[in-house]
């Protein structure tokens, strides 16, 4: 007897085998002529500057943390949704309380500004044209004359 998860496992294995076979076939028939320049990291034709495994924006980390908290609460919602119809008003009110707590946390994160992304603020040029319109017209006339 093959369970439904067993079938999915077979599907999974066959899919992985298929892609693996594709990679192996390509590995057998393709050319391989590497040299140092070809194997250097691509950086628009320049010599690569340093490594790219460096510090990155903390925002990504914050987003991941918030995601983790919310995702756990979403998981709690699934069993509730399954039995919702049979429990009626009791389940509904209870979930309103649960969602209420969730919304408080959500509002806190929003107000703290953790959902904001750094936006570039374009600086408009403060350049003042020292040549006035009158002088410019005069210059033009001078040139054409």
């Amino acid at each position, binding site marked *: 007897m093959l369970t439904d998860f067993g079938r999915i496992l077979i*599907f999974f294995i066959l899919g992985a085998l298929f892609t693996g076979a594709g990679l192996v076939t390509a590995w057998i028939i393709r050319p391989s002529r590497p040299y140092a320049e070809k194997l*250097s990291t691509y950086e628009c034709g320049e010599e690569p500057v340093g490594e790219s495994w460096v510090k990155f924006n903390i925002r990504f980390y914050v987003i991941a943390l918030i*995601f983790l908290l919310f995702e756990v609460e979403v998981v709690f919602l*699934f069993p509730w949704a399954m039995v919702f119809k049979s429990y009626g008003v009791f389940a509904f009110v209870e979930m309103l309380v649960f969602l209420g707590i969730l919304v408080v946390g959500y509002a806190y994160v929003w107000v703290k500004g953790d959902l904001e992304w750094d936006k570039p603020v374009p600086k408009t040029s403060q350049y003042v044209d020292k040549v006035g319109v009158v002088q410019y017209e005069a210059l033009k006339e001078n040139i054409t004359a």
Partner: protein
Amino acid sequence: MSVEFIVEALVKIGLVLVINLTTVAYLVLAERKISAFIQNRLGPNRVGPWGLFQSFADIGKLFFKEDIVPSAANKFVHTLAPLISITVAMSTFAVVPFGNTFAFNGHDYKLMIGDVNIGILFILAMTSLGVYGITLSGWASNNKYSLLGGLRASAQMISYELSMGLSVIGVVMIAGSLQLDKIVIKQGEYLWGVIPAWNIVLQPIGFITFLIASFAETNRLPFDLPEAEPELVGGYHTEYSGMKFGLFFLAEYANMITASAVIVTLYLGGWQFPFVERFALPALAVTLLQMGAFAVKVALLLFFFMVVRWTIPRFRYDQLMSLGWKVMIPLALGNIIVTGFFLLFH
């Protein structure tokens, strides 16, 4: 007995794999043709009539391309990442029903690979695994563009996964089950005897949020920030070439097919062909019609995916994040409460 089950499973798996891969090949061609017509040009038309064999020529080319792994890269993870991407993209399809249970020769055959009782959770889990393929490829390449693409992809996909999970809850509440087969059967009912009770009618807001989240999860325009060409060269697959690049490419289109199939199953009635049971048709004809209905619905959604890609410009990253966190999540939460209210007092 046991052998028969395994043969049945293998036949179904083989069919699904072959059909999926052929669809991917022609989807690439369809995308190029549609983009060409949108931009007022002809598209590929040299290989075979109307360019019908173009995709196969492309696959052949990918096989013969040299595979360049940068010497600074982590070679093992660099190879592993595309494998994760494509395997995950294809195996999500395992729980999607593409037809009603079909009685033949005294046996009931379910037209799906695995009818698991936690189908929706399986889909959500698989889409989460898809993040690993892209993030690992971005990290393993040791390239600045790849790393940025991978980071963006992970943040984007986890953000929209949240609203995806929240919008599905409305569907689960209506059906009272996580089993996709039961959800589809539930959608075979009629409202006032005339309107098919598809979840798009019962859950319009949930449908819209789920659709948008699917676009973001498949990294399609307008959400293709992880591979935004003008700023990130190729994003997470900048350092990929040859067959490994081909696998990422395949995975993108396989993801599109799976996403469309899931949307059809959850919101557009799955294999339901409205009113077909009111005519006395032979069982085989009904099954074929239903499978056809499923295919047509998926094809229409795929067409929609493509038209959106070629008509709508890309988001900026802060717009993308604020849409995900400040619009989609409140909408999806509100949808849950409204659905609960209706189910209780209707």
